[in-house]
C-alpha cells in the first residue's frame, strides 16, 4: 500500500476492482465501512461477480475477467477528454511534460523494439529525449506532440466508451457513470482510493493492471494524499515481509536485485543499479544503492567482507535467468532439478496446472516439506481417489515432512499491507516435535558447513564465511534477527553537522538508513527496515494508538517502513509552494527551516518549498511516471491484451497481437491451452471469507462454515445447461477437471462482449484432499501455466472451461486426517499433523 488500512477512512470514493476486500480482507474492510459511515464515502465495485464487497457497495458494475486495462484506459481517456485531471499536480509532479524519443512507437499492438523470437522487447526507444548534459528534455507548455501527456492521449484514444463496453462487457451507461464518479476526485479536496489484490495481479497482464490505476491516480492528483493512493491488499500474513526481505529468486532484501551472470564485479553490478539523475536538483534516493548493498554484505559476511575482497561480492550467486516458480517447476518437469525444499508453501495447490506440477514433483529425487500442516504437496505421491489419482508405486521421490511451528507459536514481526512491522508474541507452544523454520534451517546450515569444512568442495567460501554471530548457533532468536535486519554501526558514526560529535558508537544499533555507508563501517540486513530496532529498543512492539492528526496516522503504533513513514510520497499532498492541496488533509508542512508534521515527510527535510526538487524521490527525475520508461516488460503504457485463454479467440484492438507478447509462457505449455470452441466459458478462481487458502480446511470450525467444494454458475448458463441449484457438476479445462456442487446464482450475469454472449464460472479454491473439510479437487487443476511478464504471477483469474452436470456424483467424504497424516519419526512418537488445525483451536481449553 502507498497508504495504510486506517487511511481508507479518509477517502471520498473507494474503488474495489481486482479484489474483493470484504471477502478476502474482512478485518481491514472495517475502514471502508468507516469511510462510508463517517466520511460519506461512495464504494464502487467492478468485478465479474457480485461479491460480498458488492453487497455493501453503493455502485456495482460487472466486467469480463481479464479486461481491466481496457476499462481503466477508458477512464483515463474520459478524464483527459473532459479535462477532469488535477492539472497543477499533473504538471508539477508527473512526467506529463517530458519529451519521449522519436523512435518510440506503438503499432498494431506492439511497442517499438519487439523481438519475436525471444518474446521480449529491446527497450532502448522507451526513453526520454536527453540534452547534452544527460538530462531529460521537457516542454512545460505541453505543446510538443512527443510530450508524455500527448502520447498518452493518443494511446488511449482507441478506448472509447463503445470499445470499452464491447471488450469488457460492462454496459456503457454503467461505465460512464463510474467514470463520472472517479473523475470528480480530481478536485484537490476529494480523493479516490483503490483497493486491489490478486484480482489484478493474477493475470498475464497483472502488473500493467496496477500501472493503469497508478497512472489514473497520478492524473487525478491522488498519490501522496490522505485517502488516496494505490493500495495492494496483501493476501498472506507476512507476504509483504516476504517481498521486503527479497524472498524472490531475483531479489535481495529491500528490493535490491540479484547480480546476473554478466555482472562480473561489484562495480559493474552497482553501476547498473545506481540510477543516474535525469532532471537537475532531484534527490534520487536510490543513488544510495551502494550503501545499502555493502551494508547487506557486511550483515551476511561480517568481518569476512572487506574492501579487498570487493565486500564478498564473488560469493554472491549470479543469475543466468529468473528462477520464478513457473520456471522452477518447468525445469523440474524437464528432470533438471533433483531436490526441492518447500517451506511455508503448498505449490501443488498454488501454481497452475496441478497435473503438470504433480508430474514435476514425481521427477524429483527428494522433496522436503516444512509446514505446520499435512499439505497436499507433501502427499502428492499418495492416491486420494479421484481428486489425486496417482500410482504411488511409480513415484520414486523421497518425501521428508518436517513439522514446523505456526505463526502463533513463535514470536517475531509480521509486515502488514500498510508496511507496518508489528511485533507479536507467542500464543501457545507448538505440539509434538514441531520446530521453528529458523531452527531447521540453522541445523541444515551447520551440518553443511561442517561437511564443507571436513570435505572441502567446489566452492566452500560462501558457506564457510557466512557470518553466524548468534548466541545459540542452532537457533537464532527473533530478537537477534530483527536487530540484524535493522543494522548496526561497525565504527563510530559522526554527526554530519558536527564532525567532533559521535552520533552512534561502534556496536550500537542504527536509527536510520541515512546512516548507512558503502565503506564497510555499517551492517544492515534490510535497509528499508533500518529504524525498526534502534538503541531505543524494539520499535515494532510499540502500541500507542494516539492519532493527533485524526487522519489515522498513529505514528507510535508499531513501525512502518521506510523511516516510520505512513503515507508514501506525502510531499505530493502539498502543492509546490508547500500548501496542502486540501487544508483538512494536512499531513506535513514547512516550518520555515524544515519539513515536519504528523507523518514523516517523504522528502529531504531541509529543502524549502519552491525548490526544483520534486516529491517522487525514488525516481531519477523526481516525478511520478505516466510513461514507465523501461521499467515494465511489455510497454511503457498499459495496453489491453486478452488472457491467454479467452472467449473471443482474438483481440478486438489488434487481432495480430492477441495476448501479452512478453508474458511468461513456455512453448510446450501452449499445446495445453484450450480454445473457445471446446471450452466456451470463462473460468476464474478466488477465495472465500470462510477459508484461508488451503490452511483452514484443516480446522473443524472453518470447515463447518464452508464444508464442501462448489462452483458458481449464473442462472442463464445454468438454465442453458440444465443445471439446477445444488446439482453436482464437472468443470473441465484443457488440463483436467474438477467436480463440485453448483451454486446457481443471480450474482453472475452473462455479458455481451464484442457481439458474443459470454458466461463466466466462479471457482473458489479452498478444497483439496487433506484436511477436515470434505475432500475436493485442487482448483488449479484447471488453470493454465502462464504468468505475468514482470512478476511471473500465474494467470489464475482468467481461463477457459466447460461445464456439465455430473449425474452420478456423490457426496465426497471427509478425509480421515489421522490415518493419512500421521508422521512416523525416528525417535519420537507420532506427530499428528492432520489434526493440528483442530488442535490449535482446542489447545488452550485442554491445557486449562
Amino acid at each position: 500500500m502507498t497508504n495504510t488500512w486506517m487511511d481508507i477512512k479518509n477517502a471520498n470514493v473507494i474503488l474495489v476492482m481486482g479484489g474483493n476486500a470484504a471477502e478476502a480482507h474482512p478485518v481491514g474492510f472495517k475502514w471502508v465501512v468507516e469511510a462510508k459511515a463517517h466520511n460519506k464515502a461512495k464504494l464502487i465495485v467492478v468485478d465479474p461477480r457480485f461479491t460480498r464487497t458488492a453487497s455493501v457497495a453503493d455502485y456495482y458494475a460487472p466486467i469480463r475477467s481479464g479486461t481491466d486495462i481496457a476499462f481503466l484506459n477508458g477512464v483515463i481517456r474520459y478524464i483527459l477528454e473532459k479535462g477532469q485531471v488535477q492539472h497543477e499536480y499533473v504538471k508539477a509532479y508527473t512526467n506529463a511534460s517530458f519529451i519521449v524519443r522519436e523512435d518510440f512507437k506503438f503499432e498494431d499492438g506492439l511497442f517499438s523494439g519487439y523481438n519475436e523470437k525471444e518474446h521480449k522487447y529491446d527497450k532502448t526507444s522507451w526513453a526520454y529525449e536527453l540534452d547534452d548534459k544527460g538530462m531529460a528534455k521537457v516542454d512545460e507548455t505541453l505543446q510538443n506532440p512527443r510530450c508524455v501527456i500527448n502520447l498518452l492521449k493518443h494511446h488511449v484514444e482507441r478506448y472509447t466508451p463503445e470499445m470499452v463496453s464491447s471488450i469488457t462487457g460492462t454496459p456503457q451507461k454503467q461505465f460512464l457513470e463510474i467514470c463520472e464518479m472517479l473523475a470528480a476526485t480530481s478536485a484537490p479536496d476529494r480523493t479516490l482510493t483503490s483497493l486491489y489484490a490478486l484480482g489484478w495481479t493474477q493475470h498475464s497482464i497483472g502488473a500493467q493492471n496496477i500501472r493503469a490505476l497508478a497512472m489514473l491516480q497520478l492524473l487525478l492528483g491522488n498519490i501522496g494524499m490522505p485517502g488516496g493512493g494505490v493500495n495492494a491488499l496483501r493476501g498472506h500474513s507476512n507476504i509483504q515481509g516476504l517481498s521486503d526481505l527479497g524472498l524472490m529468486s531475483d531479489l535481495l532484501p529491500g528490493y535490491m536485485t540479484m547480480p546476473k551472470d554478466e555482472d562480473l564485479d561489484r562495480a559493474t553490478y552497482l553501476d547498473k543499479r545506481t540510477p543516474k539523475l535525469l532532471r537537475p536538483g532531484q534527490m534520487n534516493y536510490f543513488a544510495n544503492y551502494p550503501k545499502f548493498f555493502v551494508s547487506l554484505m557486511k550483515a551476511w559476511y561480517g568481518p569476512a567482507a572487506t574492501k579487498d575482497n570487493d565486500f564478498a561480492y564473488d560469493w554472491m550467486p549470479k543469475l543466468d535467468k529468473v528462477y520464478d516458480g513457473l520456471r522452477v517447476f518447468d525445469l523440474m518437469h524437464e528432470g533438471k532439478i533433483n531436490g526441492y525444499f518447500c517451506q511455508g508453501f503448498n505449490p501443488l495447490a498454488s501454481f497452475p496446472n496441478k497435473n503438470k506440477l504433480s508430474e514435476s514433483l514425481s521427477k524429483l529425487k527428494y522433496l522436503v516439506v516444512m509446514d505446520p500442516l499435512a499439505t497436499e504437496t507433501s502427499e502428492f505421491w499418495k492416491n486420494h481417489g479421484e481428486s489425486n489419482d496417482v500410482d504411488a508405486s511409480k513415484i520414486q521421490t523421497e518425501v521428508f515432512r518436517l513439522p514446523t511451528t505456526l505463526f502463533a507459536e513463535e514470536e517475531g514481526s509480521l509486515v502488514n499491507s500498510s508496511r507496518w512491522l508489528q511485533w507479536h508474541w507467542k500464543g501457545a507452544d507448538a505440539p509434538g516435535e514441531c520446530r521453528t523454520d529458523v531452527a531447521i534451517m540453522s541445523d541444515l546450515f551447520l551440518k553443511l558447513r561442517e561437511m564443507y569444512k571436513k570435505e572441502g568442495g567446489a566452492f566452500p567460501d560462501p558457506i564457510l564465511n557466512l557470518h553466524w554471530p548468534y548466541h545459540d548457533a542452532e537457533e537464532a532468536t527473533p530478537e537477534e534477527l530483527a536487530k540484524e535486519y535493522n543494522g548496526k554501526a561497525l565504527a563510530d558514526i559522526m554527526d554530519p553537522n558536527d564532525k567532533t560529535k559521535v552520533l552512534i558508537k561502534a556496536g550500537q544499533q542504527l536509527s536510520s538508513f541515512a546512516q548507512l555507508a558503502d565503506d564497510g563501517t555499517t551492517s544492515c540486513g534490510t535497509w528499508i527496515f533500518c529504524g525498526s530496532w534502534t538503541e531505543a529498543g524494539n520499535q515494532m512492539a510499540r502500541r500507542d494508538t494516539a492519532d493527533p492528526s485524526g487522519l489515522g496516522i498513529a505514528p507510535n503504533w508499531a513501525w512502518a517502513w521506510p523511516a516510520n513513514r505512513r503515507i508514501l510520497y506525502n510531499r505530493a499532498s502539498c502543492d509546490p509552494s508547500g500548501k496542502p492541496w486540501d487544508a483538512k488533509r494536512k499531513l506535513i508542512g514547512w516550518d520555515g527551516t524544515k519539513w515536519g508534521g504528523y507523518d514523516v515527510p517523504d522528502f529531504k527535510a531541509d529543502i524549502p518549498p519552491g525548490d526544483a526538487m520534486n516529491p517522487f524521490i525514488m525516481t531519477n527525475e523526481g516525478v511520478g511516471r505516466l510513461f514507465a520508461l523501461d521499467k515494465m516488460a511489455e510497454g511503457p503504457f498499459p495496453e489491453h491484451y486478452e488472457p491467454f485463454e479467452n472467449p473471443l479467440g482474438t483481440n478486438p484492438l489488434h487481432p495480430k497481437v492477441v495476448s501479452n507478447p512478453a508474458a511468461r509462457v513456455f512453448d510446450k505449455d501452449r499445446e495445453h491451452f484450450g480454445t473457445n470452441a471446446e471450452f466456451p466459458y470463462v473460468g476464474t478462481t478466488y477465495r472465500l471469507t470462510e477459508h484461508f487458502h488451503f490452511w483452514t480446511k484443516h480446522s473443524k470450525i472453518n470447515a463447518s462454515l464452508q464444508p464442501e467444494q462448489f462452483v458458481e454458475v449464473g442462472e442463464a448458463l445454468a438454465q442453458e445447461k440444465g443445471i439446477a441449484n445444488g446439482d453436482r457438476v464437472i468443470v473441465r479445462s484443457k488440463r483436467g477437471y474438477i467436480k463440485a456442487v453448483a451454486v446457481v446464482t443471480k450474482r453472475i450475469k452473462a455479458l455481451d462482449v464484442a457481439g458474443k454472449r459470454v458466461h463466466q464460472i466462479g471457482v473458489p479454491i479452498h478444497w483439496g484432499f487433506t484436511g477436515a473439510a470434505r475432500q475436493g479437487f485442487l482448483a488449479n487443476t484447471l488453470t493454465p501455466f502462464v504468468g505475468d511478464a514482470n512478476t511471473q504471477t500465474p494467470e489464475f483469474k482468467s481461463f477457459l472451461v466447460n461445464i456439465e452436470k455430473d449425474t452420478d456424483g456423490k457426496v465426497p467424504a471427509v478425509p480421515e486426517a489421522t490415518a493419512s497424516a500421521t508422521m512416523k519419526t525416528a525417535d519420537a512418537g507420532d506427530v499428528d499433523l492432520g489434526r493440528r488445525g483442530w488442535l490449535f483451536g482446542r489447545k488452550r481449553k485442554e491445557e486449562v
Partner: protein
Amino acid sequence: MALQSLDIWRRSATTTPSPQQREPIEVAKLIDVTKCIGCKACQSACQEWNDVREEIGVNVGTYQNPHDLTANSWTLMRFAEIEENGNLEWLIRKDGCMHCADPGCLKACPSPGAIIQYKNGIVDFAEENCIGCGYCIKGCPFNIPRLSEKDNKVYKCTLCSDRVSVGLEPACIKACPTQALVFGSKDDMKDHAAERIAELKERGFENAGLYDPQGVGGTHVMYVLHHADKPELYNGLAKDPQINPMVSIWKGITKPLALMAMAGAILGGFFHYIGIGPNEVEEDEEEEKA
C-alpha cells in the same frame, strides 16, 4: 459495559417471586445488516466461545452453512439474492435468538426453570432443567430453538449471558470486523440505530428502519434494515411476529392441567419406588447400550 447482575425476571413454570432489589439496565445487540459483509466470524466465534462444534455438512447450492440453525450453531448467516427492477441485492442476515421481551418459548415451557429471562432482557436456556418436550420451539415466533439429537435438550443463543455478566460483550460482537454487530444498553442501541438509519436514508434507502417488533414486546436483538418495510426479504424475517395463539391457550388452560398430570406422574413414580423399590436394569440391556 459494566458488570451485569444476572437477576432473574421470570422462570418457566415457576411462581416464586423474582428479586426486586436491583434494577439492571436492559441490554441489546444491534445487527446492522447494511454494514454486514457475511463473513461468518460471528458463527465461528459462537462455536468457539460456547464450546460447540458444527458437523461438517454438505453444500446444497448456497453460501449458507450449515443450512439451518442447529443445536451446535446458535447463530447463522442467512443469504438471500433479491432482484427487483433489475436491481440486485445480496441481503445477508445474522439469524439467531431475538431475546424477546415477551418470550414465547418461556411461556410455552412446562419445565420449571428451564427457560429464564434475566432482568437485563436476556432469555437463557438452562439445559439441565430441559425435558426435551420441544414446546419452546412451537412457542418461538422466530423458529430459533433446536432440539439436540444427542441429549434431547434444546439449545439456542444465550446472548453470551456468561460473558455479559462479567462486563464483556457477546462473542459474536467481539468477533465482528465491521462493527455491524454492536452491543450495549437498549437505549444506546436505539440511538445508534437512529444515526445509522439517518445515514441510510441520505444514501437513498427511504425505507431504512429499526426492527424491534412490538408483537413480542420488542426484542433485545434488533436489526437495522435497509428495507424495514419488507423484513421478509431478509430470508423470511417475520414481518409482525406474534406468539402462537396456541401458546396462550396452553398457558391459560392446558399448561396447569399438564403440570398436574406431570406431578401425577412424579407422584406415581414416588409411590412405585416406595411400594416396589427401584427399577433394576437388566444386564443384557446395559450391554446393548454399551
